[in-house]
């Protein structure tokens, strides 16, 4: 299949509860094999967007196509190609991870394809999410992090082409989070899985995403790679160094040239050099703030540099 195949296409998506627009003319596309992160403050409509795409929520207006069909009246076969990582709570308390994965995997058997065998081998899957030791324990007895890894395993048991992750690492400890990021990258690299995830963790977004969408007050206010977003907010970087025991800091739009010049002039006297571009956090906060306070017109103008 061609590299540029569109997996998700959203146009003019609107979600209205009463007179409040939770989503207002949201539009974006996700191409095959991309990892796209939906960022945004609480209540911005991230979960609503993802649930519309999962076919679990009826939208008020707009055109949505996921793997070529409208999720709200997608045939059941469509579910075989879409994976959803749910935040479980206390379901299947008496089951074991091995039992549950085997059971749920069975639903995917009729949809096996030569290049995408379904379901995934349960033993390999358990190893993939690192639940070997807990595989035969009652799910009730799993820790929060173990449960979330099981959630991830359930989401990918059918070897989906497209995976939805709604705040997948909420409640993970740093090590579990790093392992999970490794898992996501492997899914993309080895199986060409397309992933749409929401998160609050900017570090996670930066680490995983090919592209970031920022949703604020129900609108997409930015769409681009981490670098593109950073550049659209600020082209300046801050250069800090020590010289003769004194700290110096300088803001510049050409940090490389500035530093070259600095060394040419002072050579060995320059110590503890540190160069800092706007981080994703700076970018994110600036964009959300700018949009929510209405500075910069209707939001889109301010980010026209963003490569769409």
């Amino acid at each position, binding site marked *: 299949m061609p590299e540029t195949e569109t997996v998700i296409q959203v146009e003019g998506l609107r979600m209205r509860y009463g007179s409040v627009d939770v989503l207002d003319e949201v539009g974006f596309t996700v191409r095959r094999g991309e990892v796209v992160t939906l960022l945004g403050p609480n209540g911005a409509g991230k979960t609503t967007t993802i649930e519309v795409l999962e076919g679990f929520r009826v939208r008020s207006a707009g055109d949505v196509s996921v793997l070529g069909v409208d999720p709200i009246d997608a045939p059941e076969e469509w579910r075989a190609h879409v994976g959803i990582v749910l935040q479980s709570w206390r*379901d299947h308390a008496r089951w074991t991870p091995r039992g549950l994965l085997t059971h749920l995997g069975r639903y995917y058997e009729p949809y096996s394809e030569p290049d995408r065998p379904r379901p995934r081998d349960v033993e390999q899957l358990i190893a993939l999410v690192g639940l070997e030791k807990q595989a035969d324990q009652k799910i009730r007895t799993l820790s929060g992090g173990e449960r979330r890894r099981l959630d991830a395993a359930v989401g990918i048991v059918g070897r989906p082409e497209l995976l939805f992750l709604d705040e997948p690492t909420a409640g993970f400890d740093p090590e579990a989070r790093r392992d999970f990021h490794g898992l996501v990258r492997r899914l993309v690299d080895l199986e060409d899985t397309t992933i749409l995830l929401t998160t609050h963790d900017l570090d996670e977004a930066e680490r995983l995403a090919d592209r970031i969408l920022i949703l604020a007050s129900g609108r997409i206010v930015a769409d681009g790679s981490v670098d593109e977003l950073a550049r659209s907010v600020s082209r300046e970087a801050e250069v800090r160094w020590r010289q003769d025991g004194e700290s110096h800091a300088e803001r510049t739009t050409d940090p490389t040239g500035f530093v070259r010049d600095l060394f040419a002039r002072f050579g060995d006297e320059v110590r503890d050099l540190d160069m800092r571009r706007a981080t994703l956090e700076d970018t994110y906060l600036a964009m959300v703030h700018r949009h929510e306070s209405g500075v910069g017109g209707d939001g889109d103008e301010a980010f026209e540099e963003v490569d769409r």
Partner: protein
Amino acid sequence: MNPKVHAVRTGLQRGWTEFKMSIKSPQDQGFYLFIALVTMLYLFVNRDSKVEGTDLYLPTVALPSILGAMVAFALVIGPAYTLAMEREDGTLLRTRAAPFGLIGYVAGQVLNMSLGLIPSFAVLLIPSAFLFGEVMHQGMAGWISVVWLVVLGLLATMPIGIVIGSLAPNVQKVGTWGMMPILVLLGISGIFYPIQDLWAWVQVVAQVFPMYWLGLGMRSAFLPDAAAAVEIGGSWRTLETVLILSAWAIFGLSIAPVVLRRMARRQSGSQVAAARDEAAQWVR
């Protein structure tokens, strides 16, 4: 293979697994023990009272009625609570994320709930046989009647439970919308005292619902023919039993899938999250 058939088969395997887990669980064993103790205590206390108009003792007559009541109760309240609970905790959503998962889920529930009747019957019938002597007065034919009656009862009552579980806004509300009406209906269905002693309009109400007919059918299966004399019209009214239970089955089976699908369509991760927050908040 037809994927729908495959999903039903997967769901049946699920139901079997859940049934096995249920019998192994101390929580469910405790439940069976509890119903057995309460019933045996009631029957034992009344072991010497004769049933008016017959030469039978109360345990003999009451036991079939109680079995009928249990079918109705277990198959309405069981699915209602399970559905409301599994909707809240995300079980339903998880299975729905799989292709034809909802079909599988329902198939599993039907099998699990049906199998659950076996231990329920066993814990009542076995001790009764020891305490009060022969319980079955109709021989093999009686047991065959029990089987078709239970199957018909399943079809008549389980869809009602599914509808209640789908419509109830949360687990607590199943008590109000499910438990209360069922207990009232069981109370007026001639299980603990003869229906003829109640006001005429209450008798009419009771005879609209499947609970009365399940009790009557069970009595007709277990008791000697002469015992029919104390029933309304002096007859077991087998034809009426079949007709009314079938009517409920047709009614239930035609609306339950619609209601269930509508409810399932509204399921989403954020609803499960909202239910979790709600459950964590005891004081409102």
